């Protein structure tokens, strides 16, 4: 991409101390770049490290987690100084909408006061100014400003999710991490929320990472996608390229395992299960499930290499896989 990236993740590692000398390597050297206004889907099976990666970007990992690698925000490494260098950016530059965020509102406080509180806590605005800004934010996500004085239970699930997005945007972040933002919602409400996220990135230049296990949602919403497997990015590139010409067998098999509404081709599950992450991986982690495996796959872990315009893949066959 020509424009300077707003977010660069370089060789990020996250491991959890499980006690008794055991470790779980949830993220094992993940790299990706995100441009202004870009919507990137971060997809993969449960346990592939997609949520852990997002939490690492926010500096919100539990105390038994350790992080290594670089996270550059407009070229500045925000991980370099630990919590002290990350804190000024959390919510102000990178914000997150959590899975089930609509159920995370305090039930006995009005929606508006909770959004105002977030702004006051981060010294973005206070008093009247904060209330006015809260009204604008609600209007931005499609809720009438006067509804700010409603309680969470007076909102439907879709409206609470909109309010959670408004709250995440209250400090005017440049990057929004949305972790399964529509998983608990009905398909019609999901369409409304995805339309909202698309509009926000187009109009505000907001860069969005959409973390989800739902490939069709990414296919319809995001220009680019990163497919994660066993803690690393297996393939990254334009969504269309990943669908039309995947370079990693996992990407191809993941699409083939996803039923399509009008598609007539059969759906095939991927045999086996992802590897355990509490022991070192020396070979390609996908080799035991791969339909194109050969000798080298069981010996070396493939690096993430450029295979096309903005298209990277970590597969020993990436040069020849059709």
């Amino acid at each position, binding site marked *: 991409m020509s424009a300077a990236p707003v977010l660069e993740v370089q060789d990020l590692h996250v491991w959890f101390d499980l006690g008794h000398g055991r470790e779980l390597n949830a993220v094992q050297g993940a790299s990706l770049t995100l441009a202004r206004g870009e919507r990137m889907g971060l997809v993969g099976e449960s346990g592939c490290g997609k949520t852990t990666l997002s939490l690492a970007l926010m500096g919100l990992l539990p105390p038994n987690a350790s992080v290594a690698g670089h996270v550059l925000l407009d070229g500045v490494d925000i991980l370099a100084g630990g919590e002290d260098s990350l804190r000024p950016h959390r919510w102000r530059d990178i914000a997150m909408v959590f899975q089930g965020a609509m159920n995370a509102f305090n039930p006995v406080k009005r929606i508006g006061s909770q959004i105002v509180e977030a702004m006051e806590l981060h010294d973005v605005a206070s008093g009247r100014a904060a209330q006015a800004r809260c009204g604008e934010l609600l209007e931005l996500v499609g809720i009438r400003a006067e509804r700010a004085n409603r309680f969470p239970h007076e909102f439907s699930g879709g409206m609470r999710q909109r309010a959670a997005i408004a709250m995440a945007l209250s400090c005017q972040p440049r990057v929004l991490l949305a972790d399964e933002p529509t998983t608990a919602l*009905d*398909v019609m409400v999901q*369409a409304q929320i995805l339309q909202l996220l698309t509009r926000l990135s187009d109009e505000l230049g907001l860069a969005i990472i959409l973390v989800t296990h739902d490939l069709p949602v990414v296919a319809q919403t995001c220009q680019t996608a990163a497919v994660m497997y066993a803690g690393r990015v297996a393939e990254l590139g334009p969504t269309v390229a990943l669908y039309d010409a995947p370079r990693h067998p996992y990407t191809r098999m993941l699409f083939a395992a*996803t*039923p*399509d509404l009008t598609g007539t081709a059969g*759906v*095939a599950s991927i045999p086996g299960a992802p590897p355990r992450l509490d022991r070192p991986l020396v070979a390609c982690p996908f080799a035991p499930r791969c339909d194109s495996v050969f000798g080298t796959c069981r010996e070396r872990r493939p690096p993430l290499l450029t295979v096309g315009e903005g298209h990277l893949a970590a597969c020993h066959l990436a040069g020849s896989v059709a």
Partner: protein
Amino acid sequence: MSAAPLLAVRDLVVHYPMARGIVGTVGRKEERVVRAVDGVSLTVASGELVALVGESGCGKTTTAHAVMRMLVPRSGSVEISGRDIAPLSERALRPLRREAQIVFQDPYESLDPRYRVRDTVTEPLVIHGMGNKEERTERVRLALEHAGLSPAELFLDRYPHELSGGQRQRVAIASALVLEPKLLVADEPVSMLDVSVRAGILDLLDGLRRTGLGILMITHDLSTAAHYADRILVMYLGRIVEEGPARAVVNDPQHPYTRALISVVPRRDPNDKHREQILQGETPNPVDIPDGCRFHPRCPIGDESCLAVDPQLMGEGAHRAACIKL
């Protein structure tokens, strides 16, 4: 159909009373009900996989629970192999329970964590007093292998936490199959599972259907329904608003609700830039179902005439929709 279908539900109505609180009860506050299922008729034949689809709160799970007699309907009948189970006592019902079994959505919660696979799958046989010890062991082994857990010996002594999500759901299916039911109700059988293993579970159900089992699958996922079901029934606010052969419903939806719903299902192909028809707002509360056509407040093609009639399923042949504008 000449013979009685395996499952025939007629004019099923299930209402849940709303809590009025002590003040409301003493003050004789008007009794209000949630009209969860409000006149549903459907059939499932042997060897048929019927998908009941709809958004949360449309009444699809309540319908499934009524079919299993996990609740007593307010009115209507539920016939399994020609016998109405709705008015039966628990005692009279017990032998019929073997004919219809249910698989729940969440295999992480539906299996007892302290039971080995062997115990979970044997329990239904014990409850129904079927077979002696050797026969039970053999039936359990067969059920596990039918459910794709083969060789069964590898799984018999495991606990749920030693199994993957897909394997757990297979155990749940095995414990439903062990009674050799004729009808299987599957309530969102794959929604808690990873995409990579969903197809395996659905292929298993598809294979069971081919051996003559009738399956009623409850799902919110139209893509899954389109791929695996013979027929799709679309529910909205307690009513079936459209039914028909799966491909016909997906490729040529009739009811304006189905049309909108189909248009917003995300497609796998990013090149597919079809127009979405996003309905604003959300499904109304089933306590206050609109007069006339229950969809008219959100309908893009409705007019005053829709206020006057509560439309029934219309149309010739198998593909029918409940809309007067067609």
